[in-house]
């Protein structure tokens, strides 16, 4: 293998399984078990990208979720992934990766010119310029936009599936390092339902990169045994490659599991990701800790890495990230890295330690290995272009505030830094526990939990293995106990390690004059340097939240995982306050970015984005060529075009056929509610504006329902089936709302009323048979009813039989025609429809849809709630005050009607409009004016709510809401249209056809 930086032995990679991959068009090899980052390093590639603002060369910093630099575009076409973190991408065969945000190439990037003029680009520079000339801003902005952004959005649709699942458990454990595994064992052995998630492919966390011992065994053996045991426990679920990214209220966590991204493209099957919605009784957070870099001049060169990441590359991936290494630290843990590098055969030039002394066992082992330890020293600058070449070291004062003495240059190609550890408090903070500053350990640790939750291990600031294990076992036991399981597992054993305390060092001082020092970066992804923080503070941005927003610190895809705490430390110092006073910015989901696809899941497309509610006759409508209209969630036939017909042709034909002979409409979508109990009529008196006490049994009445604000909310026909029994129709879209509103009144306001409501919307299929021949058609298939006008008058309801089946026929009409609504249980809906079609054949019965229904009702001036009303219209505005009782003491909304504005007599009122040109149809939504030539703003007097060409009238008709319209009959209004035309129309009564109502009265 050509992986020249691969260490000959060790590591957890599969040496027998070599994989090919390409980076920026060149082909390389790696091994199964590598991440993209480790494979690149194995090939000696350090420079992987350019920084966002200055386009400086950047290398791999970390080995995990915190990575700010190694952000790649993976693959092309439908499988492309923007902004993938190479440190978390598992290598697979033929993986294709390229750098983002550089042009034309990574090596030669034109915008690296920004670096030269970087002095002109301090934090927030764009607020201070680009303002002149005013018209140029959009052009400047265009250029700014082009320069920003990292990866590219896919250009084609995603072909992958995304799964969802909901789960409940006793104990959810986030993080499967040794702490998480221990907690899982404690709770799992006790029989609790446990879910253990870890974002990595393997459980074990940091320990996979170490040679620690637990219970006397090498830690990797212990991990293997623990995982094996957990896998056997029936109530334990292990989710690898799963990130807990959101910790919401009531122990609800969202977890993103990656199912296939680690496989070669042609081996991927099934869903790509799975979103788990988990509701846990108890949560244990064992999310570990992240190492912080140290902030010094030019601390961003390729070849500068976190010390723990170096150890991970060496120990876990068997990769040597450098041949000559310098370690720079302010705490003990990086000494281990020195030993690891040394063991791997790299030369460790020196350990530069900010502390005046280091005498722990670990430090002494480093000295014994012959490695120079430079105490009271700091790396103050570095050099190198696309790769680190050397670092410069100076003496550091004991308070860390100044450097002095000679600059000593150490040549090296790797600088491993450790500025201390930051517990991953993200989830704990998301859950509401405010992170607390621990001065001694120089870290934010999880605050007092506000949910049923505990943090353990390094996530809790407990960096020592022995104590981590005890803490984890205790938390696992306690969580299981809280769920009713008897649990008292003893903690696994490990040896204590004594280490020297950390010396906090937020910004390595420079020997250069203030403001003139080279850039020292905090947020590598957003190119935020210490000078930016100081500038922000100087300009008055003192809140850490302001600093974040002014400098963009922590705004990136890494959300400041490596930079924020350093930034807060520098801000605290600049403002001369403590870090505790400075505080953190708000931790929010997502812990790491999650695909939109996984959140959308399968709830997409014509079938699953939103339910399409269908009537029992839906299949017939489809088979007969109906076009459908969305009405709420319902699919309603809109019109039934015949070959070659436009919508207008079809509607004209349907209208004429219905008026002249007979038409049929699927009216099943109307809401239907049975109202039963001795107080039913009394209840309707409150719900509706008109009177219900005296409605005879077997008769129906039209009613308006108002909101308490007096505005029309719904309308419909209600039938009295018995003294104490009614059957209410609501609008199709309003059904659910009307039912829950009526239930609410009954349950909360009038619980003493004896009324039961039952929705039967779905039970009944309804066909409206409409037109002069409707009686013949309906009576042909329906027995047991006397259909004569006298016996079965308008607004009556009767029960009869269709074959053996009991049916209900209501003689109600929304068209002004003789019409019957035929109802059968929906299981027989299609049967009923076909029988009616059969019976109607000799009258050329014509199915019609909602469009024709609209025209027919508009010809009669009937309103549609939601089209001719908009939440600001009263019954009186509609000219239907006959439907409002003058005698009732109360009904919902009544009191509102006498408010000064509502009681005005010159409100917008429903009128008819006839255009000057009979053929020209006013567009619905046209605004009406008295004087089209008036100056802007042109005073408007109303708008067109419904408008059609009426084939039956032979001219266009419209309904409009016009100010004081009822007093303006015969007057002219104008509709100025977008295309410049001005249509002239005359105000009329909103009634255009069969004005005497003769047709329904037969």
């Amino acid at each position, binding site marked *: 293998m050509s992986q020249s930086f691969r260490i000959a032995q060790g590591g957890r990679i599969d040496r027998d399984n070599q994989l090919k991959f390409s980076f920026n068009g060149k082909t390389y090899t790696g091994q199964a078990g590598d991440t993209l980052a480790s494979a690149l390093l194995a090939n000696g590639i350090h420079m992987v990208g350019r920084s966002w603002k200055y386009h400086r060369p950047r290398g791999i910093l970390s080995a995990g979720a915190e990575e700010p630099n190694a952000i790649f575009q993976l693959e092309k076409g439908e499988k492309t992934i923007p902004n993938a973190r190479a440190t978390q991408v598992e290598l697979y065969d033929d993986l294709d990766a390229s750098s983002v945000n550089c042009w034309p190439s990574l090596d030669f990037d034109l915008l690296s010119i920004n670096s030269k003029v970087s002095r002109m680009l301090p934090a927030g520079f764009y607020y201070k310029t680009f*303002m002149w000339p005013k018209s140029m801003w959009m052009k400047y902005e265009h250029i700014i936009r082009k320069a920003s952004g990292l990866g590219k959005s896919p250009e084609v649709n995603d072909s992958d599936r995304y799964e969802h699942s909901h789960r409940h458990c006793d104990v959810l454990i986030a993080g499967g390092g040794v702490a998480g595994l221990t907690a899982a064992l404690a709770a799992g052995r006790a029989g609790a339902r446990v879910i253990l998630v870890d974002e990595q492919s393997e459980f074990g966390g940091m320990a996979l990169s170490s040679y620690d011992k637990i219970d006397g065994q090498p830690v990797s053996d212990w991990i293997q045994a623990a995982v094996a045991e957990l896998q056997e426990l029936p109530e334990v679920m292990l989710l690898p490659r799963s990130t807990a990214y959101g910790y919401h209220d009531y122990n609800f966590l969202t977890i993103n599991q990656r199912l296939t991204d680690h496989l070669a493209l042609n081996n991927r099957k099934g869903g790509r990701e799975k979103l788990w919605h988990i509701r846990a009784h108890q949560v244990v957070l064992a999310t570990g800790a992240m190492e912080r870099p140290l902030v010094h001049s030019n601390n961003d060169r390729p070849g500068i890495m976190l010390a723990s990441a170096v150890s991970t590359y060496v120990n876990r991936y068997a990769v040597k990230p450098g041949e000559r290494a310098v370690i720079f630290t302010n705490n003990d843990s990086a000494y281990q890295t020195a030993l690891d590098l040394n063991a791997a055969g790299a030369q460790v030039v020196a350990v530069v330690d900010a502390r005046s002394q280091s005498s722990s066992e670990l430090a002494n082992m480093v000295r014994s290995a012959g490695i120079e330890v430079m105490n009271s020293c700091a790396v103050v600058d570095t050099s190198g272009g696309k790769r680190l070449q050397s670092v410069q070291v100076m003496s550091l004062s004991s308070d860390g505030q100044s450097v002095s003495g000679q600059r000593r240059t150490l040549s090296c190609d790797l600088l491993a830094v450790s500025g201390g550890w930051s517990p991953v408090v993200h989830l704990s903070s998301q859950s509401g526990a405010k992170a607390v500053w621990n001065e001694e350990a120089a870290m934010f640790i999880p605050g007092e939990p506000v949910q049923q939750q505990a943090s353990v291990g390094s996530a809790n600031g407990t960096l020592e293995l022995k104590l981590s294990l005890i803490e984890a076992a205790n938390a696992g036991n306690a969580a299981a106990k809280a769920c009713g399981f008897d649990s008292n597992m003893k903690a696994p054993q490990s040896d204590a390690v004594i280490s020297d305390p950390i010396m906090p060092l937020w910004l390595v001082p420079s020997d250069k004059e203030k403001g003139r020092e080279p850039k020292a970066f905090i947020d590598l992804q957003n190119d935020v340097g210490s000078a930016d923080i100081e500038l922000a503070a100087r300009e*008055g941005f003192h809140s850490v939240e302001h600093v974040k927003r002014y400098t963009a610190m922590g705004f990136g895809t890494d959300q400041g995982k490596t930079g924020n705490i350093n930034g807060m430390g520098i801000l605290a110092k600049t403002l001369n306050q403590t870090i505790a006073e400075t505080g953190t910015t708000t931790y929010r989901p997502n812990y790491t970015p999650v695909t939109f696809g996984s959140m959308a899941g399968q709830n997409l497309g014509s079938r699953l984005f939103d339910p399409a509610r269908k009537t029992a006759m839906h299949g017939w409508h489809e088979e007969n060529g109906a076009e459908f209209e969305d009405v709420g969630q319902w699919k309603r036939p809109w019109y039934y075009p015949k070959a070659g017909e436009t919508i207008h042709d079809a509607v004209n034909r349907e209208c004429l056929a219905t008026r002249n002979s007979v038409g049929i409409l699927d009216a099943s979508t109307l809401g239907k509610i049975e109202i039963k109990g001795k107080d039913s009529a009394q209840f309707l008196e409150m719900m509706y504006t008109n009177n219900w006490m005296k409605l005879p049994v077997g008769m129906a009445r039209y009613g308006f329902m108002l909101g308490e604000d007096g505005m029309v909310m719904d309308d419909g026909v209600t039938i009295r089936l018995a003294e104490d029994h009614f059957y209410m129709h609501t609008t199709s879209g309003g059904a659910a709302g009307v039912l829950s509103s009526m239930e609410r009144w009954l349950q909360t306001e009038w619980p003493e009323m004896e009324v039961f409501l039952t929705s039967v919307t779905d039970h009944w299929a309804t066909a409206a048979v409409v037109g002069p021949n409707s009686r013949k058609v309906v009576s042909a298939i329906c027995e047991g009813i006397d259909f004569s006008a006298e016996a079965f008058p308008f607004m009556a309801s009767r029960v009869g039989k269709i074959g053996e089946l009991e049916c209900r026929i209501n003689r109600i009409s929304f068209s002004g025609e003789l019409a019957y609504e035929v109802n059968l249980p929906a299981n027989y809906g299609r049967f009923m429809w076909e029988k009616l079609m059969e019976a109607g054949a000799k009258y050329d019965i014509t199915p019609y849809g909602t469009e024709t229904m609209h025209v027919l009702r508009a010809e009669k001036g009937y309103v549609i709630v939601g089209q001719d009303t908009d939440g600001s219209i009263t019954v009186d505005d509609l000219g239907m005050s006959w439907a409002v009782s003058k005698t009732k003491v109360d009904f919902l909304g009544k009191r509102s009607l006498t408010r000064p504005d509502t009681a005005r007599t010159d409100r917008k009122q429903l009128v008819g409009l006839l255009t000057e040109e009979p053929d020209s149809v006013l567009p619905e939504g046209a605004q009406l004016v008295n004087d089209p030539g008036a100056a802007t703003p042109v005073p408007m007097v109303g708008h067109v709510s419904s408008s059609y060409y009426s084939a039956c009238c032979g001219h266009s008709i419209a309904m409009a809401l016009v100010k004081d319209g009822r007093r303006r009959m015969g007057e002219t209004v104008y509709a100025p249209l*977008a295309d410049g035309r001005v249509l002239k129309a005359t105000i009329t009564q909103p009634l255009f056809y069969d004005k005497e109502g003769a047709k329904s009265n037969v």
Partner: protein
Amino acid sequence: MSKYSIFSLARNAMSFHQNWEKVWRSPEPKKQYDVIIVGGGGHGLATAYYLAKEHGIKNIAVLEKGWIGGGNTGRNTTIVRSNYLWDESAHLYEKAMKLWEGLSQDLNYNVMFSQRGVYNLGHNLQDMRDIERRVNANRLNGIDGYVVGPEEIKRAIPALNVDAGCRYPVLGASFQPRAGVARHDAVAWGFARGADQHGVDIIQNCEVTAIRQENGEVTGVETSKGTILAKKVGVVVAGHCSVLADMAGFRMPIESHPLQALVSEPIKPVLDTVVMSNAVHGYVSQSDKGDLVIGAGIDSYTGYGQRGSFSGIEHTVAAIIEMFPIFSRVRMNRQWGGIVDTTPDACPIIGNTPVKGLYFNCGWGTGGFKATPGSGWVFAHNIATGAPHELNAAFGLDRFTSGFLIDEHGAAGVAH
């Protein structure tokens, strides 16, 4: 006070940026002011700015309980448009639009107002009727607007799925070319700087805890930094207006709800306009930094927690992917919430209150960012003169008694 420009930038670069002045001063509060503005959001800061600039009142304090711009101003999806339906709102928002168009120059602070246009999509026949109605009204009110069809939309927004086979296909849209987005934080900072330059004291970490009154007249406020006196107090605290009203002894027709938003990781420009959809329910634009800025729905329950429920996020993201299937593999970076003050008619309340000298400006709910300069401008007039400007006369508390609501919810759901 130095002016911002490319030259001042160059000059300061020479001195290594050591000499920039504070954007605002953060002084200690005085004992007494002519006017106190409670709430250092965009609206409060704009009010102070225009009070000083247009009405010559210089002795003003803005009291902010946290950091300025940290309320809804700092957490909104930054959409600016003026294509409202009713005359009253259209004129108010259009006033704001006109101010936006010169705001960066007026403030000498680049608020990055980007007039990239806003599309409001229609997905069913009633949506289209409403769009026609609104656009027609807009044109007659002198506000730019067009109704556009699916083909034109597809040309303008190639990433949008306009397939007729969608669950809710795009039937058309309203388009306002002058509409767009602005850099929300810069709006707060720009107004703060402008106000500060006129002598306004901006006092952060100063929470108002009580409103002092004598004989039905306001005399000042109690704060976490002590008592501060003033004969006029303007309250502009968005989600917290009921809390302040409670201090003053009256109630508001307001409910405070969580409203959530989210951003993707930054990507190269793919969307150079703003797309909103009511029926599918989501709206999206792309910030200058490259992240897709996405607005989610309002949570139904009362909430002062600056966070909402995950189901809202999930529904919104599904809506966005339904509209823009190519974003499926793009990742969501961060989500957050604000506290929006909703009114029964989705219109603001700006004007006098039962307490003399106490003025309220609130109820902007889910959509007040776009009004920021206009709102401050009319409220300044109202406070300075003691009576509403004609642009905010219709937005008084009295409308809830008279019934003169200005219902901007748009038409109720189609029902037939």
